[in-house]
């Protein structure tokens, strides 16, 4: 029997719309949803490896309870009832003794995040966090400081742009399918691409301008660009006059940040900086200075991200075709959003979050996502209170929180670690109980509210029955909840039931998704009137260059530039990034993806490598103040001499994932746990390493 369903991919967090073909209960074919512009059949390599993931025998196959020491790899396969009863008993004892707030749940934001949040609210714990802050916490705060809206409420109209400037935003290797195709179509139509990165990437090879900037100096470059734009009056005067708050303050501030000054710091010639400013402004307002996806590199991250967003405001490109736009929700089209379980009434929570986000200690990072890199500190110092249990829901603290040794030490202090995941991740191997989740091809999921120029809803639909003894995350949490007396907060019997509940009152039902995999609230793109209709949520109702959010919390709107530390002698700045074949830490064990990129290598400038007697293919020792490892070198002139680069997410330690075990080096093992305390992101590029022949 053949059946075909429209669904949503989940090999990464983008959730591209897909069409899945199954025959006799086996998935035979996946392609991009042909009805969705920008997809039209396309997949990315991870998406193409979805079937390979589904039938991989090294996936988690049944619930397991730890037998030996943590991490020893000795497990007892148990029934769901036994695993859930075990967790219920342990959790109940912890909650009774230490309070619900001693339980932390971390996850990568997903469609059932409202279920996870409900779980914690019901036990009176404020300690839900997402991976988001590790990636883009400071981008979020930067957006809120300017617009009063989060980064999640801002989008980019790639397709109609005339010039896009990317700061290490490696679009053609991150591969979000629609984004790639929309940008590609702009380039086909003659758009210009400027790419700025200490390392040459695939995206750099498609650019008309490439600058190998000194790492960490993008803010200096932007101050100089702003200097030129203001001095030469290249900005969109009418737009700036209407919408910008704090232009004169900015003008005073950037006066001494000349292109000549920036050339010294960045290594980019002054006249080239002037040329870029003039060139982009000729194409305004259909231009994009890309504010980034991951924004977690430096301790001044928020100011770097703010400077990029300010450049867009100066170009008048915000809420404009070919520029940035604010995402529109169903309300803008006269519709209603799907319901979420968090709309229920919960008991009052009277303690601060474990990371203190939203308190005077850490006022600005978004408490809706939390600050995961503070978790080790909070556990080890019982600050602000003891934490006893961690539920890691498709979240990998050991491969994404900087300084793995510190994180391990913290985990050792916990009474209970539960992992819900698809893979034998490192945290799964270090857990007390492992609960295998059904993959995206085996489950129906909660509604995806896709806000944008055209608000829509998408649905992930089960294509085949679970291959192994797995369950949906939203069912797993409900079933744990039932064992600790909070079952009433999960008013559904199965996923179809939950989706039907979510859709109540929206005017749509599940069948409406059958035709195309999504439903739309309206037909036309919604742009607000850029003369008078920007619905900004900042206190002034304007784009706040001079930010009340920052200043009321005691931070400057325009901090003086502090030169970045330069590496000494044999030191290098460690920079990390992505490749099209892998998603963070989660796909390294996939047979097909592993076949093409099995390990990470260390990019090192060929001149520096020659000085150290290192050739491509040599095994080298790389060490920081936090950790060390051995890795193959790639000596190349495609990277700045002060920098070494490695792909994120390798060096797995879970032995059960045999293909990724010990392959390459984990960047988290080397990174120091330092952060942008204003914005909330970790500063992943603030670690210096030494490199020597091994």
């Amino acid at each position, binding site marked *: 029997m053949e059946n075909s369903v429209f669904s949503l991919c989940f090999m990464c967090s983008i959730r591209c719309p897909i069409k899945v073909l199954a025959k006799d209960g086996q998935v035979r074919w996946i392609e991009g949803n042909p009805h969705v512009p920008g997809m039209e059949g396309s997949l990315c390599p991870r998406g193409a490896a979805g079937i390979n993931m589904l039938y991989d025998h090294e996936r988690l196959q049944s619930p397991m309870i730890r037998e030996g020491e943590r991490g020893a790899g000795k497990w007892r396969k148990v029934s769901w009832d036994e695993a859930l009863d075990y967790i219920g008993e342990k959790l109940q004892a912890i909650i009774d003794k230490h309070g619900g707030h001693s339980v932390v749940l971390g996850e990568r934001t997903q469609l059932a995040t409202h279920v996870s949040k409900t779980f914690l609210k019901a036990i009176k714990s404020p300690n839900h966090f997402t991976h988001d802050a590790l990636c883009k916490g400071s981008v979020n705060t930067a957006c809120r400081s300017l617009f009063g809206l989060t980064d999640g409420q801002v989008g980019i109209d790639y397709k109609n742009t005339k010039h896009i400037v990317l700061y290490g935003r490696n679009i*053609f290797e991150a591969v979000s399918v629609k984004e790639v195709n929309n940008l*590609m179509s702009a380039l086909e139509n003659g758009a210009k691409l400027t790419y700025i990165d200490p390392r040459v990437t695939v995206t750099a090879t498609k650019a008309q301008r490439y600058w190998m900037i000194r790492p960490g100096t993008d803010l200096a470059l932007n101050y100089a660009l702003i200097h030129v734009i203001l001095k030469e009056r290249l900005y969109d005067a009418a737009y700036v006059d209407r919408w910008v708050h704090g232009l004169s303050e900015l003008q005073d501030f950037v006066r001494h940040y000349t292109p000549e000054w920036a050339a010294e710091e960045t290594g980019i010639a002054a006249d080239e900086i002037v040329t870029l400013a003039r060139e982009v402004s000729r194409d305004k307002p259909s231009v994009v200075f890309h504010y980034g996806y991951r924004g977690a590199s430096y301790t001044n991250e928020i100011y770097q991200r703010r400077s990029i967003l300010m450049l867009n405001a100066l170009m008048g490109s915000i809420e404009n075709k070919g520029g940035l736009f604010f995402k529109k929700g169903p309300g803008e089209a006269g519709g209603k959003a799907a319901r979420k379980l968090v709309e229920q009434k919960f008991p009052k929570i009277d303690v601060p979050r474990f990371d203190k986000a939203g308190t005077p200690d850490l006022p600005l990072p978004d408490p809706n996502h939390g600050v995961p890199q503070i978790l080790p500190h909070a556990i080890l110092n019982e600050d602000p209170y003891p934490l006893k249990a961690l539920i890691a829901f498709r979240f990998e603290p050991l491969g994404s929180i900087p300084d793995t040794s510190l994180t391990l030490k913290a985990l050792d202090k916990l009474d209970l670690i539960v992992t819900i995941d698809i893979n034998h991740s490192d945290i799964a191997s270090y857990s007390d109980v492992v609960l295998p989740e059904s993959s995206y091809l085996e489950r129906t999921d909660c509604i995806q509210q896709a806000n944008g120029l055209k608000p829509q809803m998408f649905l992930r639909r089960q294509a085949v029955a679970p291959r192994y003894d797995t369950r949906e995350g939203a069912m797993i949490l409900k079933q744990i909840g039932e064992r600790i007396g909070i079952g009433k907060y999960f008013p559904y019997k199965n996923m179809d039931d939950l989706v039907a509940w979510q859709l109540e009152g929206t005017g749509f039902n599940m069948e409406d998704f059958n035709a195309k995999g999504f439903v739309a609230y309206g037909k036309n793109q919604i742009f607000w009137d850029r003369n008078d209709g920007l619905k900004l949520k900042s206190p002034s109702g304007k784009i706040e260059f001079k930010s009340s959010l920052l200043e009321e919390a005691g931070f400057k709107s325009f901090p003086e530039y502090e030169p970045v530390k330069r590496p000494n002698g044999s030191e290098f700045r460690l920079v990390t990034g992505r490749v099209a074949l892998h998603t963070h830490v989660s796909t390294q064990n996939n047979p097909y993806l592993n076949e093409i990129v099995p390990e990470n290598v260390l990019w090192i400038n060929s001149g520096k490598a020659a000085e150290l007697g290192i050739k491509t293919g040599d095994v080298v020792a790389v060490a920081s103040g936090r950790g060390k490892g051995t890795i193959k070198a790639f000596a190349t002139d495609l990277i700045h001499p002060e920098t070494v680069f490695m792909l994120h997410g390798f060096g797995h330690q879970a032995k059960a994932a045999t293909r990724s075990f010990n392959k390459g080096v984990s960047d988290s093992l080397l990174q120091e746990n330092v952060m942008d305390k204003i914005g909330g992101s970790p500063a992943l590029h603030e670690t210096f390493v030494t490199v020597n022949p091994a």
Partner: protein
Amino acid sequence: MSNYYLFQDSKKCIGCHTCTIQCKSNKNLPVGPRISQIITVGPKFVGGLPKASYIFMPCFHCQDPWCVAACPTGAMQKRVKDGIVFVESERCVGCKACITACPWGAPQWNLETGKAVKCDYCMDRIDQGLKPACVTVCTTHCLSFGKVEDATQIRRERHARAVAALDQV
């Protein structure tokens, strides 16, 4: 040469390997054989800009294929109706003569079955009116499949746009 032409618009290729993986997945191949593959050459600096070539390597489906001539069992064949070169797995004895004969490394070795495998333009899909696996899911649609004249038209139109006087104003 088969009646078909698989065109790679290299300007749009990002070397992401979606083609390679979908091809393997569709043919249910183990780790090892890559019957279509992207080989990246570069990047290197050309005139101050980093440039790379992402070369797509399936099978050329030759007019007079070396692999067919070399195959001692008749497993390697050229389909009469459209010139697709394919291997009939049941007749393959795993002698690797085709692999030796092909100047471009198109036939690959499947260690699990002990037989040769190669690109057949997904002829089962073509016969259903579909496109080959790689073309269907290519991330940027840089792969297209069909008639030679359709593909050359893409380049001509792009060149025409680039030199058109209207573009200069």
